[in-house]
């Protein structure tokens, strides 16, 4: 029951929302997301990592096609569901009420349903349904409430990611026809079907899925929709995209790609790692010369995601555990950073860093919180970013020393662009735009303080999160290694 509740409650809440008057829409949506949060905490409390089948639900859906409504939870899924349910209330709460109607908050809730669904689906068809469903609300959020040039930018984003997903659809259907007996979209059967294929077929499937996931994350060179979209979207949209939605892509790699076409991964994993590492350096370099803070964070996100994706393809436990914990950390940190940009923008009407400066003396608490979250972003030890980044670099050095070393150069470049951003916007003398910069409001504190605390807590005591996902990662890697051993 709880399983179905955490998937469908946001959807019902989105419908119920229209019973309320527009000025109450935000309040109700916020309460609904809190209820969702409570439910997900209940799940986490009841969850037993060693026996993860207790939350499985499997009912026939479209019988003739072998499609079932099959959902489940293991440690990896649960962590991402928690990331979603923790961040969505913040995203709803963070905004002001002006010009945002029922529809806006309804779309956010709808989005939440799709995201939770993606992380829990155990049926290929269902996964694809949730995957595409997630695109619709975010498209409208960006289109209707975005900034300059939104129609063009959002259209490109929509078409680009949709095109990517179609490759995945083709791949899924192909696999479906390879399943034994009565064809089925069940995840285990799809794994089996994929593993029965030859290297060439697995290679094609690898690219079909990888393209879809790589565009979503995005990985170099499939990233060009991202900076524009992040910059143009309303900040809630940017947060949904960067903090949660891009994890669909990484999650897809771990859950669907690795176990389904292990030979393809063995063959093309190195290429994917190389692309990812190029992306890390490329995006970091470009971030250095950005003048707009939102764009800078967008590029830094490409760099961080590149590291995660590279770690996944090492097919090592340290790499994938690092990827999982870094997904959580990146979600929290990037949420914080984009909100910081919003706080600055709401006061100064600009994201251009050279127009700012001197904020430290006007709003010291704001500057301190910014610094903590920034340290999380550049992976200082005892912040959340370090745990994942260290594990990922560890796995890459083990994979190939040169690759690991190149990927780790991002820790230097990250410090370069983030410290410059902090110096330009926060330190120095006040500018005409920051001369009346006000300290954080209560609402802003309620959003930013917990985020800063989460960054520190995960950094100092990540053990419970790592323990949660460890059995699931072991299981996935076992499927892959058993298969690869049997092939050789």
């Amino acid at each position, binding site marked *: 029951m709880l399983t179905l509740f955490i998937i469908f409650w946001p959807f019902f809440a989105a419908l119920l929302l229209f019973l309320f008057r527009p000025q109450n829409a935000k309040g109700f949506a916020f309460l609904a997301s809190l209820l969702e949060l409570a439910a997900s905490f209940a799940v986490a409390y009841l969850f037993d990592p060693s026996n993860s089948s207790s939350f499985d639900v499997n009912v026939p859906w479209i019988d003739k096609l072998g499609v079932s409504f099959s959902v489940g939870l293991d440690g990896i899924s649960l962590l991402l569901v928690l990331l979603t349910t923790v961040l969505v209330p913040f995203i709803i709460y963070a905004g002001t009420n002006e010009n945002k109607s029922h529809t806006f908050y309804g779309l956010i809730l709808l989005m939440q349903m799709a995201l939770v669904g993606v992380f829990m689906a155990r049926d290929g068809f269902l996964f694809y349904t949730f995957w595409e469903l997630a695109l619709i609300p975010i498209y409208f959020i960006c289109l209707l409430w975005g900034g300059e040039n939104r129609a063009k930018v959002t259209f490109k984003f929509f078409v680009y990611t949709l095109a990517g997903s179609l490759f995945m659809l083709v791949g899924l259907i192909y696999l479906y026809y390879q399943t034994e007996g009565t064809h089925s979209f069940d995840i285990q059967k799809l794994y089996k079907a994929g593993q029965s294929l030859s290297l060439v077929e697995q290679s094609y499937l690898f690219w079909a899925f990888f393209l879809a996931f790589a565009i979503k994350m995005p990985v170099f060179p499939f990233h060009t929709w991202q900076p524009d979209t992040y910059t143009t979207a309303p900040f809630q949209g940017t947060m949904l995209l960067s903090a949660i939605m891009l994890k669909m892509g990484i999650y897809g790699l771990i859950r669907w790609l690795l176990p389904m076409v292990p030979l393809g991964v063995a063959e093309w994993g190195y290429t994917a790692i190389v692309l990812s590492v190029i992306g890390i350096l490329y995006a970091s370099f470009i971030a250095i010369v950005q003048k707009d803070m939102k764009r800078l964070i967008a590029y830094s996100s490409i760099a961080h995601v590149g590291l995660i994706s590279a770690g996944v393809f090492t097919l090592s436990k340290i790499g994938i555990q690092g990827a999982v914990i870094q997904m959580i950390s990146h979600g929290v940190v990037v949420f914080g950073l984009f909100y910081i940009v919003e706080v600055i923008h709401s006061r100064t009407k600009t994201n251009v860093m050279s127009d700012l400066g001197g904020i430290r003396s006007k709003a010291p608490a704001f500057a301190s919180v910014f610094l903590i979250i920034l340290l999380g972003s550049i992976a200082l030890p005892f912040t959340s970013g370090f745990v994942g980044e260290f594990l990922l670099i560890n796995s890459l050095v083990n994979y190939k020393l040169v690759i690991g070393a190149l990927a780790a150069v991002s820790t230097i470049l990250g410090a370069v662009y983030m410290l410059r951003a902090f*110096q330009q916007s926060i330190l120095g003398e006040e500018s005409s735009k920051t001369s009346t910069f006000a300290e954080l409001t209560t609402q802003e504190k309620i959003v930013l303080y917990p985020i800063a605390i989460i960054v520190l807590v995960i950094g100092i005591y990540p053990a419970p999160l790592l323990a949660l996902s460890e059995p699931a990662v072991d299981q996935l890697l076992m499927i892959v290694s058993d298969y690869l051993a049997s092939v050789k």
Partner: protein
Amino acid sequence: MVSTDLLISLVPFFPLLGFIIIGLTVNKIPKTLASYIACGAVLFSFIVSVILFVQLSGADENQRSLTVSLFNWISVGEFTASISFLVDPLSSLMLLVITGVGFLIHVYSIGYMHDDPAVNRFFSYLNLFVFFMLLLVMGSNYLLMFVGWEGVGLCSYLLIGFWFKNKDYTDAANKAFIMNRIGDLGLIIGVVLIFITYGSIEYASVFSQVGEGSATLTLITILLFVGAMGKSAQIPLYTWLPDAMAGPTPVSALIHAATMVTAGIYMIARNNLLYTLSPIALNLVLVVGLFTALLAAVIALTQNDIKKVLAYSTVSQLGLMFVALGVGAYSSGIFHMATHAFFKALLFLGAGSVIHGLHGEQDIRKMGGLKKYLPTTFVTFLIGVLAISGIPPFAGFFSKDEILAKAFEANPIVWALALTTSLLTAFYMFRLLFLTFYGKTRASDHAIAHIHESPKSITIPLTLLAILSVVGGFMGVPEALFGSNKLEHFLNPVFENSLALMNHTHLAHSTEYMLMGLVVGLTLVVIFAAYRSYVKNGAVPTFDVDSTSSVHKLSYNKFYVDELYDSIIVKPLFALSNLLEKIIEKSGIDRVVNGIGATVDGGSRLARLLQNGNIGFYIFAMVIGIILILAASGFTK
């Protein structure tokens, strides 16, 4: 009786608590309370450190090692990093230096930072620094050391840029952080390689497994040394340290002279076994240390900013410590680290007292004759100068003499270069002393009218550090001088495995006396030369006012290394970034993506033209189609 485990945990706990209390209350508590909390926290740590030290020195040699494990920090499969502390003779000595000197500098800061409105923030950063520094030396594994390593880097960044409105200062802070990160990259990859090679990152486990040298071990030790180059400001990563003088003077004394910058020395001493087994890496340490020591000493000769002279002197002295490590004289390096902490902290604090007295003046050409205005500062500064110059029986004499003796054992050329550094040190330090305190004053009448000796909170730490700079050397009096080198014996358990691997020739006492006499004699000659140039003349020599000779210019402009880095690293970095953004990103990848979009779009436009609503055209097309199908089926048959 409190358990030892608890005592060990308390050492870093106090400053952490101090940081949290001051950090959370910031300006809600009065300045005096904040400063008492900060000083008290470090004092408590010092007291506990003393208790631990007494316990250790009372124990048998093979039991001088206490560990306590708090909790598992990161654990994935085989990989485990725990929060656990190790107190052995090496870390115990570091604890005493960090908390002892640290406490005195905290007290000094009460007076020095008295008028600063953000003094609470200052003290919170200082406490945080002490906490991370303690983690660095107490961590029982490489990753916890790395936490401290990066943590002190953060505090250094925060404190260099403490006066954040000044762009030069925040530039210096960024430079320090980024240069340190370059070193840290080497360090962290080294740590990962250690895990991959030995399956653990606990010191005890790694040291017991090393066995013998290998190419991997050489790589590991070189990578770790890259970390040391950054943190301990060695060629090529030293240029951040002189710029770091932008921070308040107590920071320069504590972080950029006495403690943080010696982290590299500690790290290599901690890993002495690995380095002993990697002669290539050890030689690299030696060569880098030697050249850094010389280069920095030459630059220090011509600098006119009182803090810059001391900064280059620190770089140079750190170089000497690496020379000691590089010839395998680990305990000598640690000995010099300890005495250097005393006299260099003293010199910086003395410089701060001068700057404080002159309301911010740092140019020694605008000082002179200050000894009658600042008597306590003068006497203590003089002691510091005597100590660093290696005049017996001040602290620096013993530690530097030990390094020179070990260098002579290893290689006379190393000895000659180290000696040159030492003589240059005596010259620039006496130049500094003479220009600041001797002769007629060159300060403005206004400055002289307002000049004043510093308050007690400043002079008391100065006096205590001066006492340490006088007697500190007696912990390591060599046998040749009828001592028993207590320090070396105390540290023995840490280095015994390395020592067992090295064949040791001991210098004859007669050789030692000869070297000692030669060094002291030459030093006195150099001091006399400095006296002739800077006191007897009665004025600042012309070449210090307006440099004309090219050698002088080269030294004064620090060999243009900053400019070189700017043109071969910084500018190309930005050029590359701009190029990637403009050429590859905008005109390259994105154009291809949009091109694909446009092609599809254009293709659809063309296809749309076919649906022109003309029935005749449709029928025509249909007939052509049928013919083609028939023709195609005919071909296949």
